[in-house]
């Protein structure tokens, strides 16, 4: 339902309470984005943006989760398989 994509904060152009605004770079496309909902976000952070509004700061550690899980899952399944062979 809700198209939202990640972009990197390049600069903060307004610090007004209702219109804290940044220039956000989406792989070479730059748009002004409202940062009111991500008060912790700073220059260099990646934020998830939906209709001109940042909704979340991307957690760079958690970004690896899907790959980490895949590796753990496969390790587990391999050790199970080799375990089967031994028994």
């Amino acid at each position, binding site marked *: *339902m*809700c198209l939202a994509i990640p972009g990197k904060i390049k600069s903060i152009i307004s610090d007004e309470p209702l219109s804290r605004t940044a220039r956000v770079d989406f792989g070479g496309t730059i748009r002004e984005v409202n940062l009111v909902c991500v008060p912790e976000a700073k220059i260099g952070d990646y934020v998830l943006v939906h209709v001109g509004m940042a909704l979340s700061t991307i957690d760079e550690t958690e970004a690896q*989760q*899907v*790959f980490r899980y*895949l590796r753990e899952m496969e390790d587990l399944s391999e050790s199970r398989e080799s375990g089967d062979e031994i028994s």
Partner: protein
Amino acid sequence: MKFLDEYRDPTAVRRYVRAIAEITTRDWTIMEICGGQTHSIVKFGLDSLLPDKITLLHGPGCPVCVTPAELIDKAIEIASRPEVIFCSFGDMMRVPGTGKDLLSVKAAGGDIRMVYSPLDAVRLARENPHRQVVFFAIGFETTAPANAMAVMQAKQSGLKNFTVLVSHVLVPPAIEAILSSPDNRVQGFLAAGHVCAVMGYTEYEPIAEQFRVPIVVTGFEPLDIIQGIYLCIKQLEEKRFEVENAYSRVVNREGNRTAQRVMGDLFRVVNRKWRGIGEIPASGLGLKEEYKEFDAELRFGVAGKKVEEATECISGLILRGMKKPPDCPAYGTKCTPEHPLGATMVSSEGTCAAYYSYRRLAPLGKSESQRQKNG
């Protein structure tokens, strides 16, 4: 693009597909709630990678599709007035009400502008003080903070010429409605990651427990979706019914508190009509009393307008996951994107339209390897 491309890696997707095949022992039916996820699934062809035992049903999470005809008729009435600049998201403009769509109003002389953000509509109101600027505020929880922010900015700037036509809907009541239906087939859900970015996922915990369904908070890229499916199937196989977060780079359990506060300041929970489904109690958001000066329905006197929706297509059943588009006799024959019979065929995010665009499938031919060498 960072945080996008890495989640489209076909090798990693295939590794998850293999893992899904390994753990699946029986038939399972799961639903992705969100139209954006449906779009990704058919665009990348993800469901054809899954074992036959798994059926994916596509949920009602397309705000464009579920906006009731009544409200579109109100939008059309307001947009036809000469003093109005009517602002809308692009894909809403092609959805018909009971008669016309917004594009036809534009063709007949209405001043209708497509905007990227509701905040752009506020800017238009500032730049055009002698016109009435109306924004068509549709969407789920994801869009509510931006729409709320637009009204707050308008209030702060003292704008007297900005109003919103609100059609906000909420996900948890829709999930409950689907699960409460006697002919429900859904055994597990992929929750919409971007809704959860705002709301967190505590709301889903009692639902998972009460209805004994796994709910996996899932992102939108192929790898996110395929991992969401894996985790959902794993829970089903292990007879666990929990809320699990597979989109932790964006979502945390509590959600975005600031965004929730912004929404809470402006909106209150109301009963809402869903197109093709009907009224669901406490399933939408409306403006609070203290913001009623920004309510376009009141300003333009259309609040009382009621219309009956025609009863011809099965979009209601499709939105509730009881049928798939090919089950409908009109699908692809009487009903196509040019001649839509139902909302799910109108929006490119709608299930029928997504099926129609991407799904009338033919097998791939040979000689692929021969051609590779020419490139």
